[in-house]
Every structure is written in C-alpha cells, then in structure tokens.
C-alpha cells in the first residue's frame, strides 16, 4: 500500500529585504538556516548577524531585517 503523500505549497517570494535579487537570495537562505541551526566554531556558539561576499570583503550585509538596539551581544559564547 502506497504511503500518504505529504505535500506543501510553494508561493511567489514577496518578502525581500534587499533590492539585489542575488544578494536577497543569499540573505533569505541564511536567515532560514539560522532559524533552524546554531552555528558553532569549535565548542563555541557563534551568533551571526551578517555576511560578506568573497568578491567584496568591505561591505557587510545584515541577515535579519530587524533593527538591533545594540550589537555587542553577537560575541561568541561557550557551549555548555
């Protein structure tokens, strides 16, 4: 007997933060991933809030659309 099929609908992406669609594609994917995983370096949790493109290391792009009140909480913290 065949399994029940679990189907999910795709919609047109409408919630862009950046105008550049290729940049937005990377931002959206990082945002989605960071809602499911916690990145670590060695044993330490790393809180990410932005990224740079390898071809342009001077420009930082924010991952999350919210306005943060401070930025100093993005320091690394040890894992328990």
């Amino acid at each position, binding site marked *: 007997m065949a399994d*029940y099929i679990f*189907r*999910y*609908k795709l919609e047109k992406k409408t919630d862009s933060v950046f105008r550049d669609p290729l940049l937005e594609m990377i931002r959206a994917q990082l945002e989605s991933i960071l809602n499911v995983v916690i990145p670590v370096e060695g044993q330490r949790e790393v809180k990410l809030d932005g990224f740079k493109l390898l071809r342009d290391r001077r420009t930082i792009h924010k991952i999350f659309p919210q306005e943060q009140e401070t930025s100093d909480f993005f320091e690394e913290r040890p894992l328990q």
Partner: protein
Amino acid sequence: MNSFQDIRNASLYEPRIELIKKQLESLLSMVDLEKDGEVVEVDGFRLKNLKDWLSPSACDPTEIFGYAGSRCNCNCIFCCNKGNPPSLALGNLRRPPGEEFEEMKTRLDYFFPKAESCLFPSLGDIYEVIIHPHFLEVLRLLREKSSKVFRITTNGEYLTPEIISQLERLKPVYLYLSLNSVSPSRRTMLMKSKNPQVAIESLPLLKEAGIPYALVIVPWPVDSLCEMLDDLSNTVAYADHNDAHLVEVNLPGYSTYFSQEELFDLDEVWVKVISIVRILRNSTACPIVVMPSMYEENLGKGRKNLPGIIGLVKNSPAARAGLKKGDQILKVGSIVVSSRPQARDLLSVLQHSEIGEASLTVEREGQPIELSVNLEDFCYPYSRETDHHLGVIFRGTGLRLSYLESLRGVIDSCNAKHVLFLSSALVKPAFEQLLTESHLFGNLRIDIGVPQNSFLGGNIFMGDLLVVQDFIDFIREYLKGNGERPDLIVIPSSPFSLGGWGRDITGRVYLDIEREVGVPVELLECSTIFD
C-alpha cells in the same frame, strides 16, 4: 491528489520543511527549472522517503488518533478554538475523512513505540474524535502496535452503549468526558447538544464497562452566577454518584478573538467557583481538581508547592489505606518529602513498581501518622494503567527545585551578574518563594518580570501561551524603565516546547527575541504545566 499540508504547522513541528520551502521559493525567484528542454512550472513539493522524516517521540497514541479530531458535532458557547487568532500555527486542515484515514494509516506504518520514534506530528486543534467514521478502526489498528492507555477527550454525544462496548474491547481506555452539565436543558444551551441524554446516561455505562473517566466541566457564567454554581454542584454530585475517577473544573477564559468585550469579571467568577469546589470537596468522595491549579494555590497566603492531598481516587490503594483530604505527605518510605513534584515523582515510581506494599507518613492535624499502603488493593475507578500516584490527587504539578539549579547553570555559563527572569502571574509566587529560600543566587541580581498575553488578549494570562512578540514588547518596556540593562534574559522553555524547535504557538523562533532586543536570551528547560 491529497490536500496540501499547513506550512505554519510544519514550521512548529518540523521547521526543516519550512526551510526547504523558503530555499525553493528563493531559488525559483531567480531560475526556472527545466525538463526535456521545457520550463516546468513548480507550485509545490512533497516529502520523498518518509522514513527519513522520523523524529524522537514518546509515541503517545494521540499522535495517531488525534488526526480524527478535525470536526465537532457540538457548538459550545465557550469553545476555546473559537478564540484562536488566524496566525496560530495550530490550525486545522479540513479534508475528507477518507484522506484523514489514509494519513493516519501511513502514520501508523511509521509508528515505532519500542524505538520511540514516529513521523513528525502536524496536529492542529483537536475537536471531537469519536465522530470520525474511521475512528474505531484506527484504534483497533493502533492497539496492535501499542499497549498504552488511549486517553480520549469527548463531548459524549456519541457515547452510546454500542460505542462504549467497542471501547471496552480496546482497554486500557481513559475518557475526558466534557459533560459540562447534568441538566439536559443547560447542556443543550451551553453546548448546542443535539441529544444531551446520551452523554448524561453514559456515566453508569462507562462504570459498567470498567472505563475510568474524568468528568470535565467549564463553568461558564451564562444567565446568572447562582444558576451556574448550582448546576456545578449538581453535576459534581452526579459524577460522584457514578464513580467518576475525578472531576476536572476548567476555569473559564477567552481571547480577544473570542470576544473584544469583557464577558465577565474573571477574578469574581474564578473565586466563586473555587469557593464552591472547596465546599463540594467536603461532601463528595470524588476528587475535584480546578485548573489552572496554581490560581487556587495563590489565593492562600501560605507556603506554595507543598505535597498536600486535595482528593483521593475512590477505591485506590491510597484511599483504602486511610489517607485523607488535607493530609500533607511527609515521607514516602524512608525518604523525606519537601515538595509536591518530589512527592509526585516518588509515588509515580511506586505506582509503576512491582512491590506490593509501601509506607507513607503524613501530617494530619499537626501529628505525623504512618500508613501502610497495599498496592494490590484497589478496584474501579482506580487502575494501575490509568492512574499515576496510587490514587493521591494533588493541587497540580508544582515547581521543581531542580529548575533553580538549572537556572544557576545557565547564568554561570553566560557569566551574567544581572538577570531578567520572565515568569507568569501564576508561577511567579511559587518561583519567588523558591528563590528566596535558595542559597544559590547570593551575589546575583535577579529581576522577575511578567509579560502580558497581548497576542491572545482577552483575559488570558498563561505563561505557556505567551508568544515571541509578547516577550519582545515586555523587554522593550522594561529596558526603557530601567537604567541598567540586564546582561542576560532567561525565559522558561515551555512556551517554545511544542515541537522541540524553540517555536512559539505562531511558529516564530525564540531567537528573534534577542535579535530584536539586543540582550542575550537563554531558555531554561522546564516542562509545560498542563494543570
């Protein structure tokens, strides 16, 4: 073709599906997919190998038969599902019953109680399961795979002698029977019941079939408070007469989506209900619990979290050993008991052990009394399979002392000195008591805050129903009003514990709180307080 699943529900229980959806949508905004040189228009995706989507689970039978509860044959005037906000991730898919049955059968194929794994859940609100045309068939298939108790919530409209006889063959079964009123006219008025006699007359039939049940009452203040309280007394007496396992009184509440206007004074109604319940506890043998139980405990000024007995299941080992309402448990065997969760844990161990006899020491009228409990001495409505604490009923779960040790661990791991701990109006008094009596936090500043349930609104004030935005709003106000910023915010994990992925009931991840407020946020692992 099957219906699409609800993606918001998936974001709660299995957010990797939401991740796939967002990645696909993101990619498809940039490229077209091809097959044989032609562009393929893609509008959905499906899970490939279901065995890849197994997740750890206690394999409670509800995880299978709960999918039968997508409809209801009553229309209760107090139905909490009517007050659900549209953005809740626990919505209900409306599909043909045959399709629901297909999903339940597939879920059963991937239901592995011994391995403690099954397909990730996608349950929404559960209405009435017994009206589903395939319900009993699902239970029969389920019984082949699980010997666990089927705990079924029902409005009783279909509890005919035939259905009860079928359920009897599937034991162990325990029912939460929402009778609400023993009066046919009041039950009809409250629940739009079409045949109130069926539910009312089911109580002696359940007893005859040996199926224990909790009789559930939502005292809703319609007409007059007096009528409501009289009806409550009559309904409890009827439950007592028919050997209900216990009576569960669910104090009424509503969200702003249920009514934007105040329907009643919550404290007035709740206090009056509790006053009547306290009188009824003296005149009935059947235990009566009031939920949320911490509200009743907070009405008193005495110590919280004590292992006081508020009722005993009839014919249970504890009742037959001579324990009484009002007793305070001092010792289980030779172990001194200091809190309610500890007493519950120890009694639960006894309940599931093979030993035949145990000693309990209680305080009664200021004197310690030691009683011998014969664990083999019981009959209906008590049973080893469906009970938990030898028949002792407490005023709710209580707060575990171990939470304080965990809190200290979280604080130390973040090297914090000033902590904002977010609690709820119900839990705060007990938590403050534990904190004051603890020696673990001497050199630390711990502020306790109580966010409002603005998302649900109405008169809801439950910590486990808070959402990410409620926490953000509270913390922002707190930061505005305090000169010093805390260096850590700790939130109990229970509002984010449904799927194990740190999501609130709208599917939003708790990590958004620290992203928005700029102060590190840690969750304190703790269980949901259901009572």
